[in-house]
């Protein structure tokens, strides 16, 4: 009975079902690019995945059902638990983590393929061996790189760029070394050496660590997007090795769409991908220069802030990652409600990389039911800034730093910013004068029309809202 249900690996029925599966991926992705259809698109892609998994489970000769069940059960439980519990602010590290496990799976599959090749005996055909080696290298880099990215975003290790002297050279040596090892394995492929293969996995692992460690927290989203593309490509390479059309197409789709997303994000930060990868953004010298001098700031309390806001006509809120960390989106919305009740116009100015991922702030504010039409993109709000009475900067730092425009020597020179210093008055809600991801001082804090409200974003927003209510 079961025998009738099984599909021949690489046979017509299995291939046809895989084609259905990747067609659903393409449809799903296409719908994912429009806000109205995105949710449905995600479901279509998930349906495609279900087709692919069931097809694979029905392949002829499959065994080890107990282990398959264990792997599926553990993985599904962990994935479901994590995705339900994760806070929206932690989305970037969640993506990094899923990315890492995907890359890790590819590296393990490649290892298993090599062992399979050795087990069969004789020379492993190059058309299987080469993609297997590629999958191992990219998968391992992606796994370790993503883990480092996760650890940085989760504050398990410092977000500041960490670099060792001669880093670029070490990376280059490792990169070339991995390729040389792969070539040696490919030449002496009768049978391929498992020891050298494991050495490749190790070198690629070190490379993955070293490439991501020097990258500062602000650039991490771009790196995650790039590693996402890497994992996709490694899946495609595994698809070549296993001659599986679903893996090739789905992996390649993620590889190329991930590349586009990465470039779009880098453009939004006015930087090139190469610059992000190799510059070690926000180095120590700038941080030292900033902390060396003491400049006076104007500090105010919640009540003063409430008065300034309540008697304004036009208020713009500039949310940043600090708002996300403090889970302040609901408190801020409450403050905005109070202001709107008094007839104040409240808009939100969203920097393209506000939060820790492009579009991340939009997700957080959507969570707090902020109407979509009140979210203004940077290019839309900047020309209006001179007509804004009060700009409230909540948990944002580098993206408001006028040094990006005025100081050509600043590490963030040229980065597009929300030009809050053009507004009549600025209130910055921040816990201290500490620096942002870029590790540099923010000139905005010391400008004459800027008042600092030193407090936790959530507490401050609630307090200001309460004060406005009492006015």
């Amino acid at each position, binding site marked *: 009975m079961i025998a009738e249900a099984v599909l021949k690996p690489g046979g017509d029925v299995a291939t046809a079902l895989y084609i259905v599966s990747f067609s659903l991926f*393409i449809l*799903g*992705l296409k719908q*994912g*690019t429009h*806000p109205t259809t*995105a*949710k449905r698109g*995600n479901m279509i*892609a998930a349906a495609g995945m279900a087709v692919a998994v069931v097809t694979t*489970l029905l*392949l002829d*000769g*499959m065994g*080890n059902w107990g282990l*398959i069940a*264990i*792997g599926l059960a553990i*993985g*599904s439980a962990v*994935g*479901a638990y*994590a995705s339900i519990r994760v806070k*929206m602010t932690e*989305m970037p590290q969640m*993506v990094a983590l*899923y*990315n890492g496990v*995907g890359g*890790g*799976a*590819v590296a*393990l*599959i490649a290892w*298993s393929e090599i*062992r*399979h090749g050795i*087990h069969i005996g004789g020379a492993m055909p190059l058309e299987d061996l080469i993609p297997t080696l590629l999958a191992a290298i990219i998968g391992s880099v992606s796994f370790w790189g993503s883990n480092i990215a996760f650890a940085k975003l989760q504050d398990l290790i410092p977000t500041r760029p960490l670099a060792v002297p001669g880093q670029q050279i070490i990376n280059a040596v490792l990169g070339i070394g991995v390729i040389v090892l792969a070539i040696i394995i490919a030449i002496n492929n009768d049978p391929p050496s498992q020891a050298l293969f494991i050495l490749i996995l190790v070198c690629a692992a070190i490379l993955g660590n070293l490439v991501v460690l020097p990258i500062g927290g602000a650039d991490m989203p771009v790196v995650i997007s790039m590693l996402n593309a890497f*994992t*996709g490509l490694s*899946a*495609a390479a595994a*698809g070549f090795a296993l001659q*599986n059309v679903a893996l090739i197409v*789905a992996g*390649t*789709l*993620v*590889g*190329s*769409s991930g590349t586009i997303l990465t470039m*779009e*994000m880098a453009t939004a930060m006015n930087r090139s991908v190469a610059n992000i990868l190799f510059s070690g953004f926000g180095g120590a010298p700038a941080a030292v220069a900033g902390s060396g001098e003491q400049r006076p700031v104007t500090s105010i309390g919640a009540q003063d802030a409430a008065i300034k806001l309540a008697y304004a006509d036009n208020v713009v809120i500039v949310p940043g990652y600090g708002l996300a960390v403090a*889970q302040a989106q609901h408190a801020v919305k409450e403050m905005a409600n109070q202001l709107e009740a008094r007839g104040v116009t409240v808009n939100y100015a969203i920097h393209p990389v506000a939060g820790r*991922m492009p*579009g991340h702030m*939009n*997700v957080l504010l959507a969570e*707090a*039911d902020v109407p979509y039409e009140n979210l203004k993109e940077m290019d839309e709000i900047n020309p209006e800034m001179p007509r804004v009475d009060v700009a409230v900067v909540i948990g944002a730092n580098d993206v408001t730093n006028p040094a990006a425009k005025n100081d050509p020597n600043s590490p963030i020179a040229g980065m597009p910013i929300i030009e809050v210093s053009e507004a009549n008055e600025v209130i910055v809600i921040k816990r201290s004068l500490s620096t942002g991801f870029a590790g540099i001082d923010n000139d905005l804090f010391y400008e004459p029309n800027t008042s600092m409200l030193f407090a936790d974003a959530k507490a401050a927003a609630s307090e200001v809202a309460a004060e406005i209510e009492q006015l």
Partner: protein
Amino acid sequence: MSLFTEFTIFVLAIFVGFEVISKVPTTLHTPLMSQTNAIHGIVMLGGLIVLGYAGDGLEYVIGTIAVAFGAINIVGGFLVTDRMLGMFAKKPKPKASPASSASRPGAVDKNDEGAGK
């Protein structure tokens, strides 16, 4: 499947990927990245295949971990994308029924605090 057939598919898929994702609004970058992230969970197929045909102890271990990793990637990736997009979908509602919008932020708050502990 010949190597050249595979390459043909690979190259065509590159162009499809580029075409599909070009000009996405910034608003959707995070959910879309999350969705492509879920799709590379397709590697679980590879894990299933190597585990399904595995023949020795180490391969059992490697295969089971690979399948578990892939399942985390797939299940977590699609669920989290769905959760995220659900927040966007909620937006038109407050206008239609003010009552639901008033109750919602409170409910979300509780969840957040639970998750934070």
